[in-house]
């Protein structure tokens, strides 16, 4: 049986769920199709960083838009998502790195962005007392923070459903086609038809785009994370390094999350990843050197979420360059979590209003395929 809806969103990550929710807020009735369950992959198992800091310039407007939503996330979702704002700090380990930080902040200021702030050794020590004393400073983005990714993605899903979205979990979208002015998608024995299709399928989105004639340079990756047992509270902000691969965060419970982008081997058809302990050992060594307090903490679990990374590290966001009614929202390249709330809002504006005040034009798929529409 074919059911007619206002929009079909493929992918139950934070992006698909956020877009479904914002479409509901605009009065539409979307269906959200997720092959596993909402938040099963990268959206549910990422580091939870809510970071404007150190972003590529083309995505800063979307990030700022998103930050405004994060700060009122309870109003939107009736769930605090465990969002906490203690800032994010980028640590320069030597003078050379600090000089790069200085140039970056100056560049952003010239563009009119003020969220990144250069800090000296004294302020760094005030924000992150446990950091090794050799670090000369860094950059802080004070409104940044972190949230619980699975809780957040689930909260978006739940709210979307409450507001009228149909959520189909556990069966993959298949047989995606366009006919008679409508997009048709099969879910098991059911079919859905709608004038709008949003491709937010994460690591699986590249295949959907390619099947619709819009192949893009994307790969499937699985950044690894590990978490420790509880240690006494010693750090508030999220810390990332300028040079080496490391991100570092202590939760309220005392556990410490260690990440930074070392990659596992993904097997996306099996929903599995094989961890690379020798790379994780590198992360452990970096923490060992920078935070002596962590040396006797125990690692209780390591994992990796499967997601899409673009060759140019920028998401694919906005209308298709070939098909009417098709929108892409994928390829967030290891930094899509913070963008989720804002991207859903902007996507709903693009769909409902045909445009948005938030500058996203540098993120379109037309950077790979000039528009034929």
């Amino acid at each position, binding site marked *: 049986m074919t059911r007619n809806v206002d929009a079909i969103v493929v992918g139950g990550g934070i992006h698909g769920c956020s877009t479904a929710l914002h479409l509901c807020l605009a009065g539409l009735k979307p269906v959200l199709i997720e092959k596993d369950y909402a938040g099963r992959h990268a959206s549910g198992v990422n580091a939870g960083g809510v970071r404007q800091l150190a972003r590529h310039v083309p995505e800063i407007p979307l990030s700022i838009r998103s930050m405004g939503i994060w700060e009122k996330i309870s109003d939107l979702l009736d769930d605090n998502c465990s969002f906490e704002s203690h800032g994010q700090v980028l640590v320069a380990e030597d003078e050379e790195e600090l000089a790069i930080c200085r140039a970056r902040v100056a560049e952003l200021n010239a563009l009119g962005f003020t969220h990144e702030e250069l800090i000296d050794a004294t302020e760094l020590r005030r924000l992150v007392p446990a950091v090794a004393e050799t670090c000369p400073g860094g950059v802080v983005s004070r409104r940044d923070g972190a949230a619980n990714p*699975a*809780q957040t993605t689930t909260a978006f899903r739940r709210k979307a459903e409450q507001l009228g979205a149909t959520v189909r979990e556990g069966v993959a979208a298949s047989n995606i086609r366009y006919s008679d002015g409508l997009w048709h998608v099969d879910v098991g024995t059911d079919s859905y038809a709608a004038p709008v299709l949003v491709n937010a399928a994460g690591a699986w989105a590249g295949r959907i785009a390619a099947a619709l004639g819009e192949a893009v340079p994307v790969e499937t990756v699985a950044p690894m994370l590990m978490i420790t047992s509880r240690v006494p509270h010693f750090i508030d902000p999220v810390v990332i390094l300028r040079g080496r691969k490391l991100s570092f965060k202590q939760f309220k419970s005392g556990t410490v999350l260690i990440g*930074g982008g070392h990659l596992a081997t993904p097997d996306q058809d099996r929903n599995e990843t094989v*961890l690379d302990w020798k790379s994780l*050992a*590198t992360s*452990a060594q970096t923490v*060992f050197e920078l935070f002596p307090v962590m*040396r006797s903490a125990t690692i*209780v679990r390591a994992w990796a979420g499967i997601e899409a990374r673009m060759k140019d590290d920028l998401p694919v966001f906005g209308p298709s360059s070939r098909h009417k009614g098709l929108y892409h929202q994928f390829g967030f390249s290891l930094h899509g979590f913070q963008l989720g709330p804002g991207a859903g809002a902007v996507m709903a504006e693009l769909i409902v209003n045909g445009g948005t005040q938030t500058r996203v034009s540098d993120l379109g798929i037309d950077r790979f395929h000039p528009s034929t529409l």
Partner: protein
Amino acid sequence: MTVAPKSEDYDVVVIGAGPAGLAAAATSAEAGLSTLLLDENIGPGGQVFRAISSTPVTDRNQLGADYWVGADLVQALRASGAEVIHRATVWSLDRNLEIAVSIGGASAFVKAKRVILATGALERPFPIPGWTLPGVMTAGAAQTMLKSSALVPDGRTVIAGQGPLLWLLAAQILRLGGRIDRILDTTERRNYLAALPHAFAFLTSPYFAKGLSMMREVKAKVQVVSGVTELSAAGDGLLASVSYVAGRKRETIPADLLLLHQGVVPNVNLAMAAGVEHHWDDLQLCWSPVLDASGNSPVAGIAIAGDGAGIGGANAAVVRGRIAARAAVDALAPAAAAKLPAIATLRADLAKAERGRVFLDTLFRPAPQFRIPSGDTIVCRCEEVTAKDVLDSVAIGATGPNQLKAYRRTGMGPCQGRLCGLTVTELIAQARGKSPQEIGYYRLRAPVKPITLAELAAVPKTEADVKAVVRG
């Protein structure tokens, strides 16, 4: 003394030196395969033959003839030429058969052509009100102290639950002069009827006569209350009393020690973390790996033997260990397989060892009220999550154990679900009106046992990582 593995590559790595692991490693090494046996304990034996080489309990009658069978297995292992490392904690195994093992505070990586997991069983969680109070422990923990240090309880002691191990432990405690005030038998009355059709096989099994005489021995000395349908422990920060209902009569008795036991279940953590598919066994009420007749899992090169393959007891574990090793020999050195017992003989041995198992599984299938708690009873000890907390989370969208993590952190503490996993699955299944198979289990991840950051930091790095300076 701390000994690292002598090599980085082995034909066969066996993990766990209980009955299955001892037999598997000996068989594999005898056939000439380079064999490494890694075991977490200080000596061979696992739980069944714990401290077999070192126990201070030397009167053979006290621990029973079945225990001393372990000595022969250890002897065979020592004669086989297998490399054996104790106090070796395997904390990672992946589908490439790469094994990470912590020995004396340092980690080593070894690679195997075949891995035989013999990680045995764990006691089933027994989540009754008050089960986390100091003074309440599992029967298995009490047995560990008894075997390795000849320690037996001398305070007011209550043993509650069911199953063969419960009676064995009671007999061993009594023989060593320990005190047991009362045994509360939680076996469901209707189970006796359900088990009856399987009784003939059990009557002809080696367990029957031994089990019966052991129960008689215990019942002659201790008051046994059967048909217990409710059970709770109480006390202010320490166990003070045990309450129970039997035959609609409630009684509360003072106690210093409560030993709980309602059977054992496969220890699945390492196998699941390696990607081995498991299915819900509705008779044994636990997760069992998907295996072929030789113990091979769907992950190429990984076999599972012993109780980790599904509860079968020590005798079956020994044979399953031999069968898994035999399959490894067939694959890696077919010529050497001729020296080993014929596969038909091994299968006949296994059938004999497994005879009567269905009877035991049916009789000792734990009652729902002792598996699926309610209200304020703790489910997850690590994060102090109650049954009500779990149900509240299910009501707002936690559809399975992995989703529940986001709401309550269940299974995310140091035990990695060992003490709450089955309870959480069954609780959610009941609340959602689904089968445990549909609900599923935690996705388990390495390290299967925690390691320190310092130990991981000391692991040799790959050259590419040392050079990598780009932030992702």
